[in-house]
Structure formats: C-alpha cells, structure tokens
C-alpha cells in the first residue's frame, strides 16, 4: 500500500496534484483489472476510511489492484473544501479513473453519486445527497439545542443555499449544498448495489459515533467483488 500523487483535473481546465492510496503487489502489476475506489463523503468519510482500506487490502491480496483517490478538499488536498462542489468531485473521479487506468469502480456510501458511468462496478450501501444532508442538519440541530439555540432544517437549508453552511465542522458552499440536495446515484449506471444486508453481519459502520472496523464486513464485501471479477461478471 503506497501513497502517490495524481494530476486531478480542475473544472475550469488545468490540473492540481492530489494524493491517492494505491494497493497493488508486484505479481499483478499490469494486470487486466484495476479497481477505482470512491470513498464515503463528508462526515462518513472518517467513519468509513479504515473499513474502505481494509477492503482494499483484501482485494489486493486476491490479486485485484485498487486505488483510492482523495477527493479535492479532503485529507491531504491543498484545495479548500469550501471551493468544491459534487460535480467537481465527479469530474475529479473521472480523471482519476483515466489516470490510473481503472477498469471497474467500487463506491462507498455517498461516493456512489460520483461514480464514472463508463466503468462497470459496485455501489456499497449507496445513499442520496438529501439523506446525507438531512443527517448533517439534524446533527447540527441537536447540538444547537443542547446549547440552547433553536434551529430548524428548513431555516438551515435556506441559509445554506444562500450563503453556505458549517456542518459538523465542514464549511460547505451554497453551490455545494444546492447541488448536493439533488444528487442521487445514477439509476442508469452499470453499477450493482450491494446493500448492507448482503454483508449479513450487523449494522453499517457509518452509523457508529466513532470510526470503527469490522473484519467480517470487510471480508464479505471484498469476497462479493473478488468473486464477481473472477467469474468475469462485469458487475
């Protein structure tokens, strides 16, 4: 597992250098299959990071190289989060797919909304932007209530669409919030959904208050993908 840099295409043209985590062994360099992994978004990115990397380790051990690019504005990125929109992220992931020569894609949770549609693949526990935003708003409302401040979803959304909003410590621009609200995983994309029930071992780790790990769930998700690839089923 190594960190590397890749030229991330910018919406207005040009590139920025971003980081990516690459899992590949010497014996399958140049192999036919390479999986682009698109991470969970916003607050869930932290909860799901370890699980995501654990799945990559297992796939790599099964002979499937994987690459997990940073979304611009997250992790080690030099770009500010406040300057991003979901469309920019999708553009970036399409660039990552080209740069790394991905043949398939695996998305985690909200990452499903950013998947390149020209690659076959899988969407683990996909969710919509509206659902994820609603949870972030509710978390803020609960915290505000404990501080004696009354906020409502409608009020926060109106403010967010006009001026942007701080949600769980992340500043999201008005453009981001407006666009994210309408984002859904593409129903026409050649991607198969893998729901949490298919892992048959408890609740999803994005529900946890703190980042956790679950070897059984990582085994199950990696096995579904490795078997599908071994069978030659595109998705």
């Amino acid at each position, binding site marked *: 597992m190594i960190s590397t840099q890749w030229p991330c295409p910018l919406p207005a043209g040009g590139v920025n250098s971003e980081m990516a985590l690459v899992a590949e062994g010497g014996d399958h360099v140049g192999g036919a299959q390479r999986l682009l992994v698109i991470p969970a978004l916003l607050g869930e990115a932290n909860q799901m990071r370890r699980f995501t990397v654990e799945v990559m380790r297992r796939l790599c051990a099964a002979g499937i190289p994987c690459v997990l690019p940073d979304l611009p504005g997250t992790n080690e990125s030099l770009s500010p989060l406040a300057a991003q929109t979901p469309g920019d992220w999708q553009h970036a992931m399409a660039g990552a797919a080209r740069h790394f020569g991905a043949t398939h894609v695996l998305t985690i949770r909200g990452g499903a909304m950013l998947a390149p549609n020209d690659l076959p693949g899988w969407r683990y526990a996909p*969710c919509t932007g509206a*659902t994820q935003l*609603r*949870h972030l708003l*509710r*978390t803020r*409302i*609960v*915290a505000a*209530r*404990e501080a004696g401040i009354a906020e*409502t*979803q409608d009020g926060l959304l109106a403010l967010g669409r006009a001026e942007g909003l701080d949600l769980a410590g992340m500043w999201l621009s008005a453009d981001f919030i407006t666009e994210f609200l309408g984002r859904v995983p593409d129903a026409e994309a050649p991607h198969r959904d893998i729901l949490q029930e298919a892992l048959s071992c*408890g*609740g*999803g780790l994005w*529900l*946890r*208050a703190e980042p*956790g790990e679950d070897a059984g769930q990582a085994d199950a998700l990696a096995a579904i993908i490795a078997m599908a690839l071994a069978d030659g089923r595109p998705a």
Partner: protein
Amino acid sequence: MPAAHPDTDQNLRRILADVLALKPEVVAGFTADTGLFGHLPELDSMAVATLLTELEDRLHITIEDDEIDGDLLDTYSHLLAFVTAKQAA
C-alpha cells in the same frame, strides 16, 4: 392508536441494535417499559440524530423537527407507537 405490526417491532429493534452497536440479545430483551434516552449510555444526543435518520430511511417515514421531544425516546413503547403511527399515516 394502531397496534404495532410484528415487522415494525422487529425492524425497530434491528435499527436500535445497528445504530447503538447493541448485541441482538440485548435489544430482543427490550420490553414496552425499557427506557431509551437517558437510560442507554449508547444513546447520546449524536446517536439520536443518527437514529432518527436511520428510522426515516429504513421505515420510509419522515420525522419533523417539532416531533422530536422528550417523550419520543422516553421508552421503547413510545418510540414503537410513534413509528407505527407514522407508517400508518
């Protein structure tokens, strides 16, 4: 108030187990009077936000801000009655 459908009861227990990382045998032992908020250490205010979102997603209901009060998460039977009424609406 409509009686809770057995599926709703099971789904609610499953959601509580998933969100609060409780063992299945713990949630299976919940009775109507089992206290939730203020009784289960796992159910802090942040977990409340997660629980409400998960209830909406998995039970296909919408919970408004003004419906979230102290009674809602008081006991298991209160929460079950709430989601049952929501599903019937």
